[in-house]
């Protein structure tokens, strides 16, 4: 197939639109995060009884909450947990998933059945349930949330890896490598894994988004990031009582949360579009 010559700089207009929208949305959150590492307008957990529930103004562009804490500062510092938890969780899920999925797909047979049985069993716990239980048993802390979510998401990656490996291992270049006498470990890591990246990349990005959904849900239930540290989910839970008198308490964290998730969705969609077009 001569058309397989892929021009690397070419992007379909559809993919470009997704990338642009995604990067803008994600950029807002990431920039807020980076700035928050060095500076926030106020300390995010500094209370000030004299300026509570202020509507957005020059001093407090996002307003203040019921403690008089600056919502902008809190939103900025909340992005830290959201980004950190999603990246760390996905990293764990990715490592566990590939470590289980590639051998399962490559060897097939009983090993595959065993791994997939465990995999499917984990996937049978509806969404957030397993993470909630893990946190319930081991206690609510950022580390536990990360491990729990990593574990919950690992099967998704394992599945992608397994299916991809099963396809790739039938291709001639893998057969060739086997004929040449390349060891299985080397085949899996150097021959198969690089070719899984086009499938893993969108899955990773969407994993970041889904993990954020879960993390914010857990924080909303009070089982994620603990106060007074700010997280989007907890901020929203606290803001629920002021939904009518201080809607900015809901709007800004919700917007940032949705920006982050939507940005990731758009990027993964862009990746999917461009990778599927490029691959064919």
């Amino acid at each position, binding site marked *: 197939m001569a058309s397989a010559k892929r021009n690397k700089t070419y992007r379909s207009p559809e993919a470009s639109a997704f990338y642009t929208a995604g990067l803008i949305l994600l950029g807002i959150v990431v920039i807020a995060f980076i700035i928050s590492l060095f500076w926030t307008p106020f300390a995010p*957990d500094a*209370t000030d009884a*004299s300026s509570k529930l202020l509507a957005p103004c020059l001093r407090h562009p996002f307003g203040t909450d019921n403690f*008089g804490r600056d919502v902008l500062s809190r939103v900025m510092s909340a992005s830290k947990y959201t980004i950190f938890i999603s990246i760390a969780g996905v990293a764990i899920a990715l490592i566990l998933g590939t470590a289980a999925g590639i051998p399962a797909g490559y060897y097939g047979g009983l090993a595959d059945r065993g791994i997939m049985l465990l995999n499917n069993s984990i996937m049978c716990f509806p969404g957030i349930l397993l993470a909630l239980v893990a946190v319930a048993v081991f206690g609510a802390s950022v580390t536990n949330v990360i491990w729990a979510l990593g574990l919950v998401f690992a099967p998704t990656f394992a599945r992608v890896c397994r299916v991809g490996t099963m396809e790739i291992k039938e291709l001639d270049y893998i057969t060739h490598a086997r004929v040449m006498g390349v060891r299985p470990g080397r085949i899996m890591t150097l021959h198969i894994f690089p070719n899984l990246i086009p499938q893993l990349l969108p899955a990773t990005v969407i994993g970041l988004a889904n993990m954020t959904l879960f993390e914010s849900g857990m924080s909303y239930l009070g089982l994620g990031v603990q*106060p*007074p540290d700010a997280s989007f989910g907890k901020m929203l839970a606290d803001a629920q*009582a002021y939904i009518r008198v201080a809607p900015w308490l809901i709007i800004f964290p919700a917007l940032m949360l949705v920006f982050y998730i939507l940005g990731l969705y758009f990027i993964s969609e862009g990746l999917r579009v461009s990778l599927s077009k490029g691959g064919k």
Partner: protein
Amino acid sequence: MHRFISKAVVIISAAALIFTSLAGCAKKPAAADNYAVVGITQEPGIFDPHTVVAAGDEEIIFNIYEGLYKFDSEGNLNPCLATDVEISDDASVYTFTIRKGVKFHDGSDLDPADVVYSIKRAAGLLDGQGGVALVSELDPVSEVKDLSDGRVQVTLESGNSELLSYFTTGIIPEGYDNCQAAPMGTGPFKFDSYNPGQSVILVRNENYWQKGLPYLDKVTFKVCADMDAGLTELSSGSIDIFPYLTTDRAAQLDSSRYNILSNGSNMVQIFALNNKVEPLNDVRVREAINYAINRDDIISVTMDGAGVKLTTAMSPALGGYYDTSLDGTFDQDLEKAKALMAEAGYENGFDITCTVTSSYLIHVNTAVELASELKAIGINMEIKQVDWATWLDTVYTGRQYETTVIALTSTYAPYDVLERYRSTSDGNFINYSNAKVDELMEKIPMTADSEERTALYHQVLGILTEDACSAYIQDPATITAVSTRLEGYHVYPMYVQDMSTVKLAQN
């Protein structure tokens, strides 16, 4: 098969449409609305009037059980199942005249034997109880006698003039031991059912001895996850009465649909410092904490200003027993606080944990505000939220904590408020120990003269303040939202929901 599936989809969709349209048309039945729904934020657990601990349980069973005496909404102690009491001069013998014509929920009559059984049970005098009082305050009771003339005589080990308020403990039928599963008392409402995690339902007691009461047919205590969940239900109309609101939340309610009642609660919100753990065992550190915090700000943030600032262990609501000279002792003074910290060797501050129950937003919020304020003197306070049961277990009973925030409730009696500062008291969860206080608390019940007693109370309060045994914050107002559908609700200065006087509004 695929055709079957397509058809099934169509049928299900159609069915769903019909349901939704039906649901749209359905109107609530207008009749039989002689009921009230009260929102509570704690899971009820114990319905036995003698083993009940949590205030959240007491506010429910207040409607089921009655004692010989009963508080009213003003905080006065009135005769209830007793018509009268005679107290001996040394305050060691109480003789109650039992009211006649009172019936239990099962229709049987109240007689002195029931009273004897109940008080013995509460005081741990029944066979097989091993002398362990279920109601620890009644431990001094040594003998309960039916005088066979409609009177019951209670004898104490030693004189105690402050004990009458504990005879509010519930009276149950003689020999009855199934209070947990099937509560049975003489109160205005009968126990109907308990759905764990959802509700407790009470129904009208037709045979209530106070004629004309109660007005309502049914009262439901509905469990809400927290105040905000309750608020949501309140605004949607599925709850009629919701106590313990904060002012800012109450302000959001539609005033045409809800009356907001506010009252001093006679509660003492305490930033409890465990006197036995480092570095809080150092009085200078405790003082520093007291000087570092700004009570006005906390009241502003948590109650929107609706609270009375406290500097000591008693609410000014107790009138003369409260020592006004202590006002202003611990006004915020950061310099002094820092100096005290330095003196104690903590000029760089320290880390500490505040274990607070997530069931009460006011306490969580207080903790958050405290954490922010304590930063100023270098104390880095981490907040650990636990559920109510865990809090009770680990903090209150287990005393495994560093600091906590909680509101202490009490009957309307100064002795009850201060009893917990005795070093041996079950309620002494801050591990406070001062021999002088122990001595004074021993002396108070023996003192018949009320002025002398007041002076002793002042002395105790003075020592507590001197020792800065903990940081006292406020007496938060009890703010209750009551649907305009109802009237006759009274806010008590203690943790009860008296539903007997509540009735439908006349319009």
